């Protein structure tokens, strides 16, 4: 019997006390294969003001390019202890940090590979639907051929590409609107 979708609603401002039990900003315990990276996402509203009450989630493949999920049936290694899921609240400076490993590349349905990327979900008071975006890595030679990036107007692609700061942290500001509005995907 067909059923109609349950509509989305905002996460609201007061989720902290509950979902904090399931926070995980460190995705990769010692021993997980791959290049260790730190990601810092900062959330801004359309006026550029920081959003200190947002919740960010990430989902990614492991360093071999394998998702820890039954739909990924490729013969690539899974890493014990690495699910590929992270969740963190933005802090008073609008920043959420994750420690993880750099994901490997995964295939595109029509053939070829996607550039390494991390899938990002944004929730906040005033955000009625989950906003989905991606984080790519600056300097990756595969960016030019990434089929998802190539769906985006060239002048907006930079909103999806994290840059490495002087301390080695991959930083990506996310803008919910305004002149630097992040590219969000209908996925």
């Amino acid at each position, binding site marked *: 019997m067909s059923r109609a979708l*349950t*509509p*989305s*609603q*905002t996460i609201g401002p007061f989720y902290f006390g509950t979902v904090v*039990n399931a926070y995980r900003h460190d995705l990769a315990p010692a021993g997980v294969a791959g290049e260790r990276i730190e990601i810092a996402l900062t959330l801004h509203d359309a006026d550029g003001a920081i959003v200190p009450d947002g919740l960010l989630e990430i*989902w990614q493949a492991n360093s071999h390019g394998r*998702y820890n999920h039954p739909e990924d049936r490729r013969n690539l290694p899974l890493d014990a202890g690495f699910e590929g899921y992270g969740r963190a609240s933005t802090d008073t400076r609008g920043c959420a940090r994750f420690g993880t490993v750099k994901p490997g590349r995964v295939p595109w349905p029509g053939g070829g590979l996607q550039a390494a990327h991390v899938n990002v979900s944004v929730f906040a008071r005033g955000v009625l639907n989950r906003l989905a975006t991606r984080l790519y890595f600056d300097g990756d030679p595969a960016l030019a051929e990434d089929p998802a990036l190539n769906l*985006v107007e060239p002048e907006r692609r930079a909103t999806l590409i994290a840059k490495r700061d002087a301390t080695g942290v991959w930083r990506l500001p996310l803008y919910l609107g305004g002149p630097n509005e992040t590219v*969000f995907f209908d996925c």
Partner: protein
Amino acid sequence: MNEETYRRPAAGQHHPANRSPDYKSTVSRSPSKPAIVLPHTLSEITGPLLRAERLDAGENDLTRRRMGEPLGERIVVHGRVLDEDGKPVPEALVEIWQCNAAGRYHHPGDQHDAPLDPNFYGGGRARAGTDGTYRFITIKPGAYPWKNHYNAWRPAHIHFSLFGPAFATRLITQMYFPQDPLLAFDPIYNSVPEGARPRLQAAFDMDATQPEWALAYRFDIVLRGRNATPMENT
């Protein structure tokens, strides 16, 4: 490669518009450009299942997380996690959070002049069964004022968070109570297209009440279904 994809919800029939100006916070927190339609790749058809996440016994009973019993009307909230074909989403992790019976969240940002209940924290988790069924025991949350507009009150609600089988199925929503007179005045509830609003109301469920102990409400959650015909690739 032969990958299944998820159906895309018809615009304007299920979910709220991102910009819903009666809910004032949306104005500066909603993208102005349309989302770019992304084909479903492995990144979208996989997602966190959190099967390794160990739930403590009793995490689904919000009335027994502290030393004593919370004040308020004890209720059972139960239902099924389904997809659009009515098939159960097995072993889905369901997270809920809510305010107490007086309308106050156990959260430092909530400054509403209503008492905190030392015996009510307001958060719970449950793992759905293989048939998609889940069950919580909690107390009925109160209504509370907020600053969206003059004399604004949120109808009583319980927040729900679900992952479903894929990144594409992630959903956060709110469950409301049937025939709540505040629903007509709530811009968050009314951000949803009119025909879809009743889906956010739980049903009073006499059959699931527990005599001498608790009333019951039923709330089924429907996540995106898969396309009937898998997409053929190469």
